[in-house]
């Protein structure tokens, strides 16, 4: 008896191109219109993940809040839009790029702080400057945290995935920076005798210099309109208060106090803001240019500008005494205030808003 082995048919590959049939070449997400000629990787990762009854969502939202408001509602902001789905974040962030950037920043700061401390740089900081860092940078970290929490709240409400993810990464950047400052001050404090780690919060809560800032931040956190929060953070507070303090004070003054470390830490936030601002300008410009709702949106944004701008202006003015505290004086408050107004004018111009009433008020 002979044994014959049954031939084994070669198993067919399941790789792309191993067979040709209807649809076998359809290798792109095809349910949205890319902003450019081809969809970016960011768009593929982001667009339409949060559905919409006007796009693809056949059965409508299937759970509602007790008052009948659905899972996502266009009514969660007073701004109106003909098509919310048009917005794309300028920074094109999805998870991988976000972690890469955040991780790079964390590494950069760690290098600066570790090497600076190792070389004894902290001990060479000017004494008056150390107190400024302790009291005022220590207070300012809470403002960053407040903005991070406000945007964390806001990322629940946007009508598309693109809006919510842009607000989410904004929150992530703000919260990282608040923690960067906290840990930075904690670590340099180890090299400085008598450095009071709790002084920053005490100044934040009680020092008249900081009460305007705290009030402005709390006003943002108390807003119930998520786009108002996003607007107030990026269009108003950042240029009028945050950049004023970061760029107009820390970044310019520190080097003359023998401090090369603090500007490196704070520079990360300046870079973060450029990206957050670009996203915010893109969104608010889209809403101002909306053919149907643009006029009403502009009026709405002007209202937000005056409300939060008034708080921010007051906050900025209250910060003025800080410019007198370093031993070596490099900048004058009126000069940097004017720079911040120029920044605001530029932002207003990009969005299509007239900021003169706020600046001149």
């Amino acid at each position, binding site marked *: 008896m002979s044994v014959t082995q049954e031939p084994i048919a070669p198993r067919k590959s399941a790789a792309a191109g191993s067979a040709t049939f209807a649809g076998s070449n359809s290798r792109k997400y095809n349910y949205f219109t890319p902003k450019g000629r081809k969809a970016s990787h960011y768009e593929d990762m982001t667009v339409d993940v949060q559905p919409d009854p006007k796009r693809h969502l*056949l*059965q409508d939202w299937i759970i509602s809040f007790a008052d009948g408001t659905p899972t996502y509602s266009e009514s969660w902001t007073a701004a109106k839009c003909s098509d919310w789905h048009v917005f794309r974040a300028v920074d094109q962030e999805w998870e991988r790029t976000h972690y890469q950037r955040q991780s790079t920043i*964390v590494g950069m700061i760690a290098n600066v702080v570790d090497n600076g401390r190792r070389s004894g740089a902290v001990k060479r900081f000017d004494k008056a400057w150390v107190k400024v860092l302790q009291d005022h940078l220590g207070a300012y970290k809470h403002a960053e945290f407040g903005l991070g929490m406000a945007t964390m709240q806001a990322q629940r409400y946007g009508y598309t995935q693109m809006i919510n993810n842009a607000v989410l990464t904004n929150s992530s950047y703000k919260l990282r920076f608040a923690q960067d400052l906290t840990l930075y001050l904690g670590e340099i404090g180890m090299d400085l005798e008598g450095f009071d780690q709790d002084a920053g919060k005490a100044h934040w809560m009680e020092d008249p210099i900081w009460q305007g800032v705290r009030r402005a931040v709390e006003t943002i956190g108390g807003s119930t309109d998520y786009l108002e929060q996003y607007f107030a953070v990026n269009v108003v507070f950042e240029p009028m208060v945050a950049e004023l303090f970061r760029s107009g004070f820390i970044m310019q003054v520190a080097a003359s106090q023998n401090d090369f470390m603090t500007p490196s830490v704070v520079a990360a936030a300046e870079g973060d803001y450029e990206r957050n601002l670009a996203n915010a300008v893109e969104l608010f410009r889209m809403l101002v240019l909306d053919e149907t709702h643009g006029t009403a949106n502009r009026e709405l944004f002007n209202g937000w500008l005056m409300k939060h701008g008034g708080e921010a202006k007051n906050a900025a003015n209250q910060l003025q005494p800080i410019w007198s505290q370093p031993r070596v004086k490099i900048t004058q408050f009126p000069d940097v205030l004017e720079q911040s107004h120029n920044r605001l004018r530029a932002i207003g111009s990009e969005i299509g808003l007239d900021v003169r009433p706020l600046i001149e008020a």
Partner: protein
Amino acid sequence: MPDSLSLSKITAQKGMSIGEAARRVADLGWTPSYVQEAMTFPTDYKITKTARDPMKQVLRSYFPMQEEKDNRVYGALDAALRGDMFRDVEPRWVEWMKLFLAIIPFPEISASRSMAMVGRLAPGEELRTGFTMQMVDEFRHSTIQMNLKKWYMENYVDPAGFDITEAAFGKCYATTIGRQFAEGFVTGDAITAANVYLTVVAETAFTNTLFVAMPSEAARNGDYALPTVFLSVQSDESRHIGNGHSMLMSIINDPDNHQLLERDLRYAFWQNHAIVDAAVGTIVEYGTTNRDKNKESYAELWHRWIYEDYYRTYMLPLEKYGIKIHHDDVNAAWDRMVKKNYVHKTAQFFSVGWPVAFWRQEAQTDKDFEWFEHKYPGWYAEFGDYWKWYEKLSTPGETNILFNQDVGYVYPHRCWSCMVPALIREDFCVDTVDGKLYTYCSEVCRWTHKVAFSAEYEGRATPAMGRFSGRREWEDCYAGWDVADAIQDLGFVRSDGKTLVPQPHLHFDDSKMWKLDDVRGHKLGSPLQAIRAMSDVEREKHIADYRAGFKINPFN
């Protein structure tokens, strides 16, 4: 090299301890005094006890850790391509990824959104740090899963179904249960949704079946990408489980919360079981070609992770706080898994509906039968003939199984609560809510709609609780439509304008693929519309007949 020359000794300097760093970060928050934070998502719970963050992690260690995890994931995806993974992957498996990966990114990003809801409610600042990291984690999960799906689309033999993924998610008869899952995380009472339903039950219990069972099965089918991505995702879950438990501990000591907590644990456990076990159970058991009798069945995995790990070590200890745990529900869920064939009936339902799906579903064959009978004794007697019919009717020219009267399958009612149909026929029930009749798969789902999702619970006002809404019965959307027209409207047609995206087989050959004309001539109906139109007498008989079940006609 002498010890004194080690790099760590050269570079070492005094740093901050992890505990001190976490404490300082937690001190970033403050109690507002000028303007109170907007409390925009309501809850009926009272939260007074400050929650603790068990993880004590800060962002400067979090981001590099996550980047490293990402590097491993993306490196592995590259390696899989270089190793020609798709030459050997099982198409039966990858087809089911069209369904799974259409669903999962939305629940993930919903979890991210829900952190806004609990972030505002947590007293003190410590746990907020945990919530912020979970927010970014979930952003990671959603977009890393979209990336994996794109990768399959670019490299697998049949990209149709991946290419329409998010549009299909919003429309399909099967993805509707995934939307119920995701919306449950973010809508209604903030604690019910974002703490109990999401973290205490879905993440603590059911991510094990989602993110561990499924990767194991993927690897058995030659797919090394899914385990790479999902085990990396699962590694973030311990942080989320910690957040959920910590928040739970901040509400459980107040007896005023117990009534609501019992309600929510009951609703959340049952609905997670109904949804996750239906979808994941089907994919793990029916999407595989691996029939190793030594591997654990989904039911066995369920017993290990849900019953032993979760029920016995997480739920039961809650009783010491005075919480009533519904042991009967856990046992009933287990019975549904092993005695009432819940997963098998779901797989049967999915396959009956193949013409309105957006992935291919292959027939189960002799090799599968043997494994099912070994793991689930009695399986063959109930399902063997069905799958033989399915294979026979998978050829174009046959009347497709959804409408073929020879088979004997009776199309099910939808459950208004979990959105999975009422597949265990003897448990089918109906009730009237606000003057309208609804159908349910089980008593707990009836209770969930009528009692739990209501403005009042056991005499207590629950103004924050959500409501079921929308066109919850998928069949209602296409009632009276020719199935071919419905498929076109769904967008489940390939680029030639006539060949269906779904197919009841794995032939990658135009001559064997179903086209619109092959299914045309049959009208879809709404079981809910039909039962509502019945007289009381007719309805009573219909319910009795439905509960009696059906018998698949013998296959000769």
